[in-house]
Every structure is written in structure tokens, then in C-alpha cells.
């Protein structure tokens, strides 16, 4: 049994209130890619593959990874999603993919997409959470530029990637 999803506008208002609470309580917004940056930077320093003073790593190793704000927030995201999926009967171990794609190809494109997104988010200093949501609602110019080129690239390339999803 799969209960219907919450109305998207209500889900959006819920996320907006959470984001507003983050502004008020901690003076910052939501994030996701920053958590991945912190995990990779900490691991790199831990295995002594990088100098903590290195400019690409330094901002992410100021505090231990378990006291990194975005890492803790992201753990909360996973727990919240797990609870919601469990209570809605949507918890299922499976590879979700387009009708014409094998599970192996789906995994490969998911990995490739992840690599590109991380690179893009590092260039842009944030992803859908840190730039589009957080910076968008604060009317940051760079965040709106990011939103614009993200959508533009997605729509421009969509016809080429049609077999992945249609």
C-alpha cells in the first residue's frame, strides 16, 4: 500500500517554515553538499592524504566532523526521511529507474550524476539546499544565477537523456 504524497505546496510550506526556523535560531539556512565536503575533507586528513591547511580542505576541518553543523543536519534529514517513508509504507530496498534502463545502467548514471553535481556544487559553493533554497529565499544574486543555469542545463540536456527516464 502506498499512500499518496503530501500536496507539494504543503510540503514546500513545511520546508519553508523549517528554513525560516534555521534563519531565526542559528542564523543560517539548510545545506547538503557542504556535509559531503566535510566528510571527504575529514577523511582525507584522517588518512594523512592531505594537509589540513590546504585551501580546499581547511574550511571543512575547523571542527571534528561529528560537530559539523551540516553533517548533523544531514543525519537528521536521513532519519526524518526514514521515519516518513516507514510510516507511509514506502520503505523498500530497490533500484528506482526509468522503464528502459537496466538496474546496472541506472546505478552507473546515478554515480556519474553524483560526481557532476558535487563538482558543480563545489564551484557554486552550494547545491539545491544551500544555494537554491537558502540563498534564493534571502535573494542572493549568485543563488538565483545558480537556479537559472541549473534549470537551463537540465532542460537543454533533457532531450539527450530521454532514454534514462521515459
Amino acid at each position, binding site marked *: 500500500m502506498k499512500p499518496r504524497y*503530501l500536496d*507539494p*505546496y504543503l510540503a*514546500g510550506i513545511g520546508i*519553508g*517554515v*523549517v528554513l525560516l526556523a534555521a*534563519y531565526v*535560531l*542559528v542564523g*543560517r539556512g539548510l545545506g*547538503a553538499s557542504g556535509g559531503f565536503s566535510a566528510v571527504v575533507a575529514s577523511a*582525507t586528513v584522517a588518512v594523512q592524504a592531505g594537509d589540513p591547511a*590546504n585551501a*580546499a580542505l581547511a574550511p571543512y576541518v575547523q571542527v571534528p566532523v561529528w560537530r559539523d553543523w551540516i553533517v548533523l543536519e*544531514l*543525519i*537528521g534529514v536521513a*532519519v*526524518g526521511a*526514514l521515519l*516518513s*517513508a516507514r510510516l507511509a509504507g514506502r520503505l523498500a530496498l530497490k*533500484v*528506482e*529507474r*526509468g522503464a528502459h534502463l537496466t538496474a546496472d545502467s*541506472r546505478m552507473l548514471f*546515478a*554515480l*556519474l*550524476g*553524483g*560526481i*557532476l*553535481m*558535487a*563538482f*558543480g*556544487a563545489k*564551484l*557554486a*559553493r552550494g*547545491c*539545491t539546499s544551500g544555494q*537554491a533554497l537558502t*540563498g*534564493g*529565499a*534571502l*535573494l542572493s*544574486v*549568485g543563488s538565483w*544565477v545558480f537556479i*537559472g*543555469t*541549473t534549470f537551463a*542545463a537540465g532542460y537543454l540536456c*533533457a532531450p539527450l*537523456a530521454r532514454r534514462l527516464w521515459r
Partner: protein
Amino acid sequence: MMLDPAGALIAAPIIGLAFGWFLERGGLGSARKLSGLFYLTDFTVFRVLFSAVLTAMLGAFWLSRFGLLDLSAVHVPETFLVPQAVGGAVFGLGFLLAGLCPGTSCVAGAAGRIDGFAVIGGLLLGVLTFNISYPLIDGFVASTALGELTLPELLHMPYGVVVLLVTIIAIGGFVIASRLEKSA
């Protein structure tokens, strides 16, 4: 109202939990649903994203109007024009291939979607790739720095007017999205 650093760390997983809950409830843990955005068949992501932006934008505006929030104490992401434009384009292509973004890949993974874990693995690899190539691109990454620049400052318009314009444009977008979905 602002919490001290220890309080902020306690608030982090609670704020995250509520964020993850609403993302999953709205269906954003499903790559098939998200990818519908690019084929004009399912505008869920668009609706969730922009109704969240409107809510937080209007909330922050009115709270600051009534003196309940000091907007200058909230960190506005700095603008680096060209790297952010290019980063967005690379991100958009990745989003199309993955069908999930970094936050929603965690939602998908938590709900048992194995492809969500593949996206998470890709994100870790992508950060590593960026860090390794950083010495070659650090000049570009730091280029066209404009600081904490906002649309009202750029357009020389009052903050409230820009808030109103963004609200009108977003509502227009919601109406167009409904029409496109019906015709698809």
C-alpha cells in the same frame, strides 16, 4: 533568539529531521518523480522548491519588519558570478542524470533506494575530484567575487518590492506548471 554554538549543534539534527520528513512526504525521495520536471510531466520539485522559497522569503521579510529577526545576522551566501553560473550548469546536468540532488539522494537512500546510495557515492567522489583539481582551478573558483550581494541591491529596488516581484513570478510559474502538466 539566536542560539549559542552548543544549542545550534543540538538544533541541527532536529531541523534536519523536519527537512527530511517534508522532502519524503512531498515525494522528493523518488528519482522518477523528480526527473519528470525535465520532461514537463511532473512539476512536484518545482512546486516544493518555490513554495519553500516563497514561505521562507516572506517569513524572513515580515519577521524582520516586525523586529523579530535581524536579517543582517543571517548569513547570505556570497556571490561569485561566473563560477556559480558554470557550477549551476554542471550541477543541472548531474541532476538530470542522477534524478536526485544531494539532499534528496539522502532521502532516497534512507527510504531504501539503492540508486540513492550510488548518487551519494558519486557525490563523495566528485568532492574528492574537486579537491584534487583545486590547485588548477582555484583562481577561477574565487573569480568574479561580488560579496553578499542581493537582488534588491543589484536592482536598486526596495527589499519589499523585490519580495513582491518574486512572489508574483513564482505564482505565475505555478499556474504555467499546472497548464503544462495538463497538456502533457
